[in-house]
């Protein structure tokens, strides 16, 4: 079943055009990798899907499946998208001083539960729940008491993003350069964590410019992205070709 369908999407930030007719389709259960050179606008693409206010969509549409109907995602606010299962693991997670990771995760999770008419989790129940998720990512418990991303190393921040993903169990997960800043051990832990979160009901879009993340999370499709749109689509072998030959052969 189609989860996300993007048709001829154009978007700009300030006066700069960043998407120039992007077409893209994702079905439930699939993993897509989007690869492209630095500065090609891959991050812009992910922020537009999540609804970052700095971007303006000038043409095209983004359809997203909600309750078996394709809905116009662009009409939803940032938090509504999140509550409907769109999740962006950010390249540069933001620090929130004075707010504990635990409190933030609980608020976030309860906001989603409430949206779906479910009963909110008490502090105790949530603590049990979140500790299970932390095991998945081999995170220490004191992580919960620290302020959100404050004083975290680059790798800790990325792991924290995946923890949020594990807690919220979104349907459409976009991982924006989650591999950057991770050493090889962390990369393995994060990769395995993400694999455990894969299911036939969710879809994952990996944005990266290295093959190495794909050694851990095997994609169904690899897309080469440049100049505001997808230039070429293939299987995992396309990533290997990129690894060997770089992006120059595309030009």
């Amino acid at each position, binding site marked *: 079943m189609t989860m996300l369908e993007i048709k001829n999407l154009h978007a700009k930030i300030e006066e700069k055009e960043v998407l120039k007719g992007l077409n893209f389709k994702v079905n439930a259960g699939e993993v897509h990798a989007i690869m492209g050179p630095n500065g090609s606008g891959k991050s812009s693409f992910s*922020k537009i899907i*999540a*609804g*970052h*206010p*700095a971007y303006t969509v000038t043409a095209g549409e983004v359809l997203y499946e909600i309750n078996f109907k394709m809905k116009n995602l662009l009409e939803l*606010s*940032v*938090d509504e*998208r*999140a*509550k409907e299962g769109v*999740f*962006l693991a*950010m390249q540069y*997670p*933001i620090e*929130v*001083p*004075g*707010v504990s990771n635990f409190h*933030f995760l609980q*608020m*976030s*999770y309860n*906001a*989603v539960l409430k*949206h779906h008419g479910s009963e909110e989790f008490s502090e105790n129940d949530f603590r049990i729940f979140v500790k299970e998720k932390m095991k998945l990512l081999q995170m220490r418990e004191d992580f919960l008491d620290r*302020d959100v991303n404050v004083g975290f190393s680059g790798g800790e921040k990325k792991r924290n993003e995946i923890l*949020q993903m594990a807690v*919220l169990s979104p349907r459409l997960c976009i991982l924006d350069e989650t591999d950057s800043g991770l050493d090889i051990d962390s990369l393995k832990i994060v990769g395995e964590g993400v694999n455990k979160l894969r299911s036939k009901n969710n879809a994952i879009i990996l944005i990266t410019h290295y093959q190495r993340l794909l050694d851990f999370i095997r994609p169904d499709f690899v897309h080469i992205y440049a100049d505001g749109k997808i230039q070429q689509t293939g299987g995992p072998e396309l990533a290997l070709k990129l690894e060997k030959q770089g992006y120059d052969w595309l030009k």
Partner: protein
Amino acid sequence: MTDSKNLGQGDYKYGFVTDIETEEVPKGLNEGIIRLISQKKNEPEWMLDYRLKAFRHWQTMTEPHWAHVTYNKIDFQDLKYYSAPKNKSEKKSLEDLDPELLKTFERLGIPLTEQKRISGVAVDVVFDSVSIGQTHTEVLEKAGVIFCSISEAIQKHPDLVKKYLGSVVPISDNFYAALNAAVFTDGSFCYIPKGVRCPIDLSTYFRINASETGQFERTLLIADEGSFVNYLEGCTAPQRDENQLHAAVVELIAMDHAEIKYSTVQNWYTGDKQGRGGIFNFVTKRGKCAGAHSKISWTQVEAGSAITWKYPSVILLGDDSEGLFYSVALTHDYMQADTGTKMLHIGKRTKSTILSKGIATGNSKSSYRGLVKIMPSAEKARNYSQCDSMLVGPNCQANTFPYIEVKNKTATLEHEATTSRISEDQLFYLQSRGLNKEESISLLVNGFCKEVFKELPLEFSVEAVKLIEMKLENSVG
């Protein structure tokens, strides 16, 4: 008598007026009025003399205008200086109060009847100009703690009042303090004897109800050698179109090894969205660490009033004494706040800490103003100051006016200040995790204030967080 009318439009839930018979004095201020107030309160001669002396001094003073706030001139002759709920008969206990008053305080979340009383906190309740009663008097009496209205203290403990009233804030101190000394009608008095840890928290709740009435309460708190007290203060007022003046004076005295923790959650009516009405909160609060190793801390959450103008200060007289000031000031719509502290180091090795968090939203102005003064006698004094401001939206203002005067070379001072604006990226991050805009701003602001909130007693801290959340919900979005 009719039910309390709710004039609130949903955003200030304390904005209702209690319809109650009151006893008032005519508008205006002159010696005759002061004599009348003193007479109504059946005061001794020395008290009347104190008032008249203050009044005569006040007449020679001019209204100060150095604060970073603007407002229309106050006509001091157009105010009433006394308003008290009428007592039909002599009251025996709080339960005998006018049911309308009991209902009012229930609505304010301060239940006064025995079965519903907040456990662990003794409350003195001041309604307009007078104190209407205290709770938990027996527990306190057993410990030897005196906790009563200042009117009662003037009658029953004249020696203590005479000795300490005006000893920290003299009548000549400033325009509003002089006015308060002349016309104060009630307030709380508290004396903690030597070596006593006050068994329960003490609290004063101030409520302005009557219109065109100024509220001038006076609080005097003395902690004798080696004693400890936790003191809380809350305040609300009805929603009215005209401004109302609140000019209180609070004096704290800590003897050797005594400690006073004084916390305020100030939620006077702020005025409406266009900036009409609201309380002018012009207050003088000062503590004196008179004894060695004494400690006074002021913790305040200033979330109300059209204009707040106050600087809870500490005179660090005793050697090794310590003063602390923790403040959160939130302004929204057209509110203005000019608040901060003064730390005056006189004794040796005196220490002070200042932590101020200002949050401005809407068209409001928030200023921190502070003075740290190290006198020549204050060998090895230390101060740490941190003043942070957070701006929410493009039309608000935050200012910091730190003054430092050092007259002893052995002093160590540190000062940090930051100003930040909630960024689009911060909001996007929180919203992309399912929190809506108001929840996101509220979370950021609460995080920003956390260091101050954790200094508040638990139940007050919960109240403060809720108050800030509610205020933000109504002012941003």
